[in-house]
């Protein structure tokens, strides 16, 4: 009985600890972003385009590639997202994100602009679409809402002026890759038997 009570007390203490643990972060990208040529702004024309920006959680100390539509792959989870078009560089105004604490990492990424006439659509983010992923930061257990942690997307050096260049490209979604591989296999087999 003593063991059970001790275990219950420990669990209760853990529950209290978990209940007060938070991710409490102000995230932004106020230098904006440049296309892969490190020169052109990512919204072109502007106005007329918006860029999808996402705050992502990952339990791993690495960044997965982005899928079509801005999909996350692997264990990653989109915590927060929005369309930005405040200026032609897709600068991301600061905002607070709070949620229950998870041990792991956060990072943010932004995709090249898509047409926003009639409202921007993630459907326009397709294979080979350019994007930028900010650095990974370990999550911090912060329960003080008056003192958030800060996450800045713009931390990579850029020789092309203010802002970071989009240097990554959207990869096909896994099902598409499997289908493409199967197609290639079929072609190889047909060629083999055609001889």
């Amino acid at each position, binding site marked *: 009985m003593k063991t059970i009570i001790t275990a219950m007390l420990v669990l209760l203490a853990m529950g209290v600890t978990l209940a007060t643990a938070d991710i409490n972060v*102000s995230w*932004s990208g*106020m230098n904006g972003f440049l296309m892969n040529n490190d020169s052109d702004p990512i919204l072109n024309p502007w106005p007329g385009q918006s860029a999808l920006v996402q705050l992502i959680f990952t339990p791993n100390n690495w960044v997965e590639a982005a899928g079509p539509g801005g999909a996350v792959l692997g264990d990653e989870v989109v915590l927060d997202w929005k369309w930005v078009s405040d200026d032609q560089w897709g*600068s991301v*105004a*600061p905002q*607070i994100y709070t949620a229950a604490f998870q041990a792991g990492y956060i990072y943010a990424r932004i995709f090249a602009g898509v047409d926003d006439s009639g409202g921007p659509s993630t459907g326009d983010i397709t294979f080979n679409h350019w994007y930028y992923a900010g650095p990974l930061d370990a999550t911090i257990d912060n329960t003080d*809402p008056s003192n958030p942690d800060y996450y800045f997307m713009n931390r990579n050096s850029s020789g092309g002026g203010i802002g970071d260049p989009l240097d990554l490209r959207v990869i096909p979604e896994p099902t598409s890759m499997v289908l493409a591989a199967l197609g290639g296999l079929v072609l190889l087999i047909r060629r083999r038997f055609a001889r």
Partner: protein
Amino acid sequence: MPFILVLTVCMVEGKLINWMGVKMKKVVLGIMVCVALAATWAVGQQVLSKNAVGYVKVDMEGGGTKPNLYLVAHPFESLTDANGLHLVSNVFAAVPNNTIVSVWDPIGQGYVQYGRDGRGTWLGAAATAKISRSQGAFVRIPSNATQREVFLMGEVPDKTTAPSQYMSRAEGLTMIGFPYPVATRLTNTVMAQALPNNTIISVWDSAAQTYVQYGKDGRGNWLGAAATAELQPGQGMVIRNTNAPNSWWETKPYSWP
């Protein structure tokens, strides 16, 4: 100026009276009465400009299951202190017991806290601590406290006492408020121009108990909602920028007083 004007009118009236055959003694008496009236008027004008007082009411209450935070900044001059400072225990006289007032030390980059104990006594340094006009302060109201009305009250900064106000920002975090008691668009302030690029301003949303943030981008433009944001009287804000400190003179945004 009104004094001179009234005196002039009286002298003219005196001449007119003399022309009409009235004794000189009466004329002199008339002038003296006019001078007295003018002096009273002049003094009255002075008192009027000195006594423009105002207040901002802030409702504060506990959050039920957790304490609530309020971020305020006193926009008025002190009516009693020669240096224009406000006693913490006076400003927050209405807060419940076990309230903590946290004032930011921009040099040490940490809070200096003042507490009111469970019996209502301001503890230690809190009893004599003072805050200046436009200095920000977080007020932590205990979870179970019912609603209280806190009045930020004092003399309205006027054309004599504060036609402009010296403001400064530290490297890191600074907690201040707009130094005049009138709602002002952020981008219309001198501060908006003076703050370095990549500055984040955080104002506190008391209802949501979180910050609303405004950012000045790497090119010097205020982003998104910042362009139309209004700073409210008595509202505190946290300014974040890691550049070297800088300062500016905020100008009074109203003509009277």
